[in-house]
């Protein structure tokens, strides 16, 4: 059962420093060989300050920067063993680069409980030097056990 008192709740902020190796590691795990992620000189020649983070890097920031999310989900009443990832949405304001220090904040953006499934959306906002650099929304669902 979802605890709707959590709707709108903002969890404690966390700080995440972007490491060059973590950018490469994500690109490698995806099997993305674009030199943009590995070669600073190449990235600069393409108009970037440094090797930018891949498009799905926000997930790295969230899981490594705020692993407590699993505990928070359990507190809300989400069965983490049965959750499914339904949606992921990113709004990119500016590229993320090695050395960036980001302050992340996760909010319980919306909660819904239908007959057959629970659905919860978390919104993360990442601030760099006082300015919003990125937002991420993750929607998960838990389907009711029918059997």
């Amino acid at each position, binding site marked *: 059962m979802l605890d709707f008192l959590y709707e709108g709740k903002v969890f404690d902020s966390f700080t995440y420093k972007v490491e060059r190796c*973590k950018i490469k*590691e*994500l690109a*490698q*795990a*995806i*099997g*993305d060989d*674009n030199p*943009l992620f590995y070669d600073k000189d190449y990235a600069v020649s*393409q*108009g*970037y300050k440094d090797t*930018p*983070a*891949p*498009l*799905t890097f926000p*997930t*790295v920031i*969230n*899981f*490594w920067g705020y*692993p407590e999310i699993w505990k928070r989900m359990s507190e809300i009443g989400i069965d*983490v*063993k*049965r959750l*499914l*990832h*339904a*949606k*992921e*949405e*990113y*709004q*990119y304001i*500016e*590229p993320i680069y090695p050395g960036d220090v980001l302050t992340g904040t996760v909010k319980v953006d919306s909660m819904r409980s239908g007959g057959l499934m629970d659905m919860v959306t978390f919104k993360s906002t990442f601030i760099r030097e006082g300015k919003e650099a990125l937002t991420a929304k993750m929607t998960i669902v838990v389907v009711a056990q029918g059997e």
Partner: protein
Amino acid sequence: MKLPKYEDITEGYEIPSLTKEPITQLQLVKYAGASGDFNPIHTIEANAKEAGLDGTIAHGMLVMGMLGQAITNWAGIMSVKSYLATFKSMTKPGDVLTAKGTVRKKYENEDGKFADCKFSIEDQNGEVKVDAKVTVKF
């Protein structure tokens, strides 16, 4: 890497597709470490079976990352303004995924020139894994 020009694309323009190597169990282990998502249904067969699955499944975010590779190959990083993904079905080790995309709409406003694109990534049987909407700024 040549970025597309606003003038050169048209609505209906097909973005170059990308076919990935087959997904391996080792890749899921690497992705778990890279992303920090250690849900064991992706890496440990016994845990996957306990959760009611036939075997391990790929992280949805790995599949979104592969689709992201096709987006970046075409548009780079800084031109991409938003990326919205909907997860449609599960991906297993051995699956061979192909990402493709189409320009749906191009438009200009006070903030610049944009294209709204639709992307998807599917397996060797044509089953769609992730659908996505992407906005690119020129």
